[in-house]
């Protein structure tokens, strides 16, 4: 069954009003007209018409905090999948916080393929791969909880206006959520059952991101699931 949509669905090639606000490259000036280049949602927000892409690929920007998955170990760095078209690099000396000697230090002792890290993008300009840093509060290896992958274009909805959606899920499940722009959410929950409910809630948010009344539906879903599972 379909749900009411928060605005109008726009598809690639469709003309938009010149006053519509939208991010590059999801909107484009072409032959004097403004067009959408991906499937998106045209909606009204605070007296403005905005175009929000429903589909899209995550492209890193300097300053972004991301959750990365360690893919392999290099001679002096780790290769990290940040859910972008470009593989990121985490230099060993940044992670260790001291000069690094490959003859002495074994990188596999610190991070292995399959580990998740929270890191900040410190260098990136599309001509070379993004460089990550874990120096900063809350950054580093993910030790507890799980990481859920969702579409990067839906992360804004997981967070919600003034973090309303994330706060609500945290309040109703007792979990803590750490959503990042690259489409990953780190979840820490008091129990496995609550973790499952939180993941299901996030997957619904991802699938129904552009529909009306989502926060209320998710709240109701979590309450019903908790009652059904007796947690």
């Amino acid at each position: 069954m379909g749900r009411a949509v928060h605005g109008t669905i726009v598809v690639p090639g469709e003309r938009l009003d010149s006053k519509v606000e939208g991010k590059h490259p999801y909107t484009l000036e072409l032959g004097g007209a403004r067009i959408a280049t991906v499937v998106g949602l045209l909606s009204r927000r605070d007296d403005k018409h905005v175009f929000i892409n429903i589909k899209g690929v995550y492209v890193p920007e300097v300053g972004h905090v991301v959750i990365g998955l360690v893919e392999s170990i290099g001679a002096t760095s780790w290769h990290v999948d940040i859910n972008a078209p470009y593989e990121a690099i985490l230099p060993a000396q940044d992670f260790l916080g001291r000069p690094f000697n490959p003859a002495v230090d074994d990188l596999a002792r610190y991070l292995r393929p399959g580990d998740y890290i929270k890191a900040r993008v410190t260098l990136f300009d599309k001509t070379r791969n993004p460089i990550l840093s874990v120096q900063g509060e809350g950054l580093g290896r993910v030790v507890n909880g799980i990481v859920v992958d969702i579409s990067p274009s839906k992360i804004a909805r997981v967070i919600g206006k003034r973090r309303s959606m994330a706060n609500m899920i945290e309040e109703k499940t007792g979990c803590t959520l750490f959503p990042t722009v690259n489409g990953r959410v780190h979840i820490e929950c008091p129990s496995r059952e609550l973790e499952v409910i939180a993941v299901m809630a996030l997957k619904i948010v991802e699938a129904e991101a552009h529909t009306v009344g989502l926060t209320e539906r998710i709240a109701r879903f979590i309450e019903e699931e908790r009652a059904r599972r007796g947690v």
Partner: protein
Amino acid sequence: MIDERGLRHDGRRFDELRPIRMQVGVLANATGSALVEYGRTKVLAAVYGPREPFQKFMTLPDRAILRVRYHMAPFSTSERKSPTPSRREVELSKVIREALEDIVLSSEYPRTVIDVFVEVLQADGGTRVAGVTAASLALADAGVPMKGLVAGVAVGKVGGVLVLDVDEVEDSMGEADMPVAGAPDLGLVTLFQLNGVLTEEEVERGFSMAWGAIERIVSMEKEVLRRKFEAVGEEV
């Protein structure tokens, strides 16, 4: 091939398309996917990327590479087709790639590759143009920025009459086959081929028939994409 009422072997009028069906998001593991049917012709398209290629030497510093593989499944024809890529498949891969290259904003993702797999599941004529349509939908489903949607259709000449959307029988018995693809929103023709002989006037008339059909097919593509994102409740 054309009866006394002016109808074709399958009962269509000369300017009638076969029934067209489209679905998007049919493959969970692909970034974007689409299944397109032109009558009995069924084509599946899957898009992966933009992503880093396994062979990094293949990248370009200023844009993404669009890699297209057109392939006919061994079971797609009445007689088994060898799965080895034939000369025709290599050529059609190039033709479909060129039909999409002007539309995709590849400069947004330098040093990456966008893989488009076009797999013909059932062949009954018009596989390359159905492939272009499927690839365009799959790219839109993948969220790859595009200037517009592309669609294709073939016009043929059968029994001296120009006919729209030729099927296998008409293609093999006809005098000419002219596949056309383009993006009506941009007024851009991205594929134009002619196999056989047509007069200048026939080419013009055939092209105008094809373009009208392409506009209709692109409208269907838009409708399918809208429906998918309006009916999200079904995915949970």
